């Protein structure tokens, strides 16, 4: 779960990391009032879960409250990479002498937290990694022991941070690790961490992503979820315990298992790409899906107007194909789809499942033996519908 910039920075502050004075606004008038209250130059920043908002015009400097209100009006409602800006953060502008990159993330290969920092802040880590890999200091953290003081000294020394800033920086390192650790974060990033003209350190921008699997023990963070930029269909699926991700193609996919779901998408693209046909979604109904869940999943798939055919690919392992077949019939009756549905059942009780489907003699049902055949038939069905 991604936190917005303003949420991330508020979290940092709880861990003793200094941040600029500022507040979030949902209207331009509110933005103006906050700017007036802060006084002086402020920055108006779009709060959206996407990178590159600066280039998209979502970040503006304002010299006074009137300018702040004007900028907020322009930014609120702006569409950035498909997301609508619903909130802006009004922060006092920092007097920036130096920008530092600082982040802690999970290193998958090492199975350990990894701290990365650089005196070349401001650009994102991928760009930094491409252009100045030697300027990044990387330090693994023992997941049991945590970040030790001697490691912090090493980091400050290795990155050649001027000594005058060590004390403040070490406090920020220790605060950021505590924040990452206690929040079950996948990523806790300050970029830039600014050295101001007055010699203070300030987290000017921040990004925190919380491990979805740990949300059960992070009630305060879970309560901060902002679903406003989550598509309605994905939210419904999430609430029903189904993983669904909307894509741009025409073939709705319903599959058991994440790897097979991706593969099924890939097959529709493999056979459909030449004809401009591809997957409309990722959907994993999981291992023990009930007929109700199958019905919900089918409604969600069909709520996408692009969908011209649905492909069921079920490889029964623990999942029994006869049960899935009954689920499909229930869903069919509940949803009454008007697009063709290709059904491929394989594995445990596949024969019984196929029998149930064929005996139901429903319109628009096409059966297939293999994944290849199923994908090809779904592509053909879309072509016929055109």
């Amino acid at each position, binding site marked *: 779960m991604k936190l917005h910039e303003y949420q991330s920075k508020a979290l940092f502050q709880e861990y003793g990391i200094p941040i600029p004075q500022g507040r979030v606004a949902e209207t331009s008038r509110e933005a103006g009032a906050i700017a007036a209250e802060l006084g002086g130059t402020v920055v108006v920043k779009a709060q959206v879960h996407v990178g590159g908002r600066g280039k998209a015009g979502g970040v503006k400097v304002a010299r006074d409250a009137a300018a702040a209100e004007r900028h907020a009006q322009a930014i609120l409602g702006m569409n950035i990479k498909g997301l609508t800006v619903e909130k802006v953060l009004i922060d006092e502008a920092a007097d920036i002498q130096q920008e530092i990159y600082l982040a802690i993330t999970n290193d998958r290969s090492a*199975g350990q937290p990894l701290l990365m920092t650089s005196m070349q802040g401001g650009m994102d880590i991928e760009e930094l990694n491409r252009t100045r890999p030697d300027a990044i200091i990387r330090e693994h953290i023992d997941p049991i022991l945590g970040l030790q003081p001697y490691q912090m000294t090493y980091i400050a020394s290795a990155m050649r941070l001027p000594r005058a800033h060590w004390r403040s920086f070490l406090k920020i390192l220790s605060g950021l690790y505590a924040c990452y650790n206690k929040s079950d974060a996948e990523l806790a990033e300050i970029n830039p961490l600014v050295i101001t003209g007055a010699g203070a350190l300030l987290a000017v921008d921040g990004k925190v992503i919380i491990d979805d699997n740990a949300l059960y023990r992070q009630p305060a963070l879970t309560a901060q979820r902002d679903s406003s930029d989550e598509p309605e269909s994905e939210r419904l699926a999430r609430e029903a315990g189904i993983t669904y991700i909307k894509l741009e193609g025409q073939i709705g996919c319903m599959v058991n298992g994440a790897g097979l779901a991706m593969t099924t998408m890939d097959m529709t693209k493999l056979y459909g790409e030449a004809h401009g046909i591809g997957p409309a979604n990722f959907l994993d109904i999981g291992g023990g899906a009930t007929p109700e869940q199958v019905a919900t999943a089918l409604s969600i798939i069909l709520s996408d107007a692009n969908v011209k055919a649905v492909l069921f690919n079920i490889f029964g392992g623990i999942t029994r194909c006869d049960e899935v077949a009954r689920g499909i019939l229930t869903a069919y009756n509940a949803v009454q789809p008007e697009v063709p549905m290709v059904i491929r059942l*394989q594995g445990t009780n596949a024969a019984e499942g196929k029998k149930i489907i064929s005996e139901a003699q429903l319109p628009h049902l096409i059966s297939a033996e293999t994944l290849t055949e199923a994908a090809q038939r779904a592509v053909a069905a879309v072509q016929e519908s055109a």
Partner: protein
Amino acid sequence: MSILIDRNSKVLVQGITGRQGGFHARLMMEYGTNVVGGVTPGKGGEWFDGKPVFDTMRAAVKTKYADVSLVTVPARFAADAIMEAADAGIKLVICLTEHIPVADMMRVLAFCRQRGTRLIGPNCPGVMTPGEAKVGIIPAMVALPGDVGVVSKSGTLTYEVGFAMKNRGIGNSTIVGIGGDPVIGTTFVDILEMFENDPDTKKVALLGEIGGSAEIAAADYIKTSMTKPVAAFIAGRSAPPGKRMGHAGAIVDGGEGSADEKIQALEAAGARVAANPEEIPDLLS
């Protein structure tokens, strides 16, 4: 022969009195796996299908010598269960549980390394040596005994490929599901190395997916150290970047971990990469 498990492996099931744990323990026993008992805290002294249930792994290992443990407990208790197994001296722990927080897994992994315990998973379908034993949920019907080793991040995709091989009369030495989580106990490279050293494995199928760089490391290993032919499939060519495709680890992030990048690396390493997993049997012939 085979890797990791065989007919002699003595298996304890952690969470055996649970719905999932009990169901799979029965299927494992039906398959011929030597399940010697189970553990459920607070249910020590009970019996499960003629096998003793213990309160703790320590008591179970003390009473019934065991090699392998299967963890089937819910996510909130799984990290503790793995550590309990490692602390009790179990050298191979296979964890099916999904949705374990990454922070927990990192701690657990450090603990397992200290104790010299190999962890497979979490969030994996387990391990099967066809005709000998299975520890996990891989269905009996997807594989025959044979000489192709399979290692995979995914469950049902593995069944799909196993089944495609079986239909062509190709069997498997051992099938290993390593799981699709970002932090896992055993990587592609670990298993490739075991297959390379296993005299009964002649060829290997590798089933990867987007996210992370484990397949790149596998390609490096294949290039530098493998003599046996490898056929591969990478799922997720059609997945958009920045989105988590079901598996917690399946996300292309900052341009890294894409299917194309992995396919290129594997092909450059000499592996034959299928565009369609049902072609894997052809690539193995």
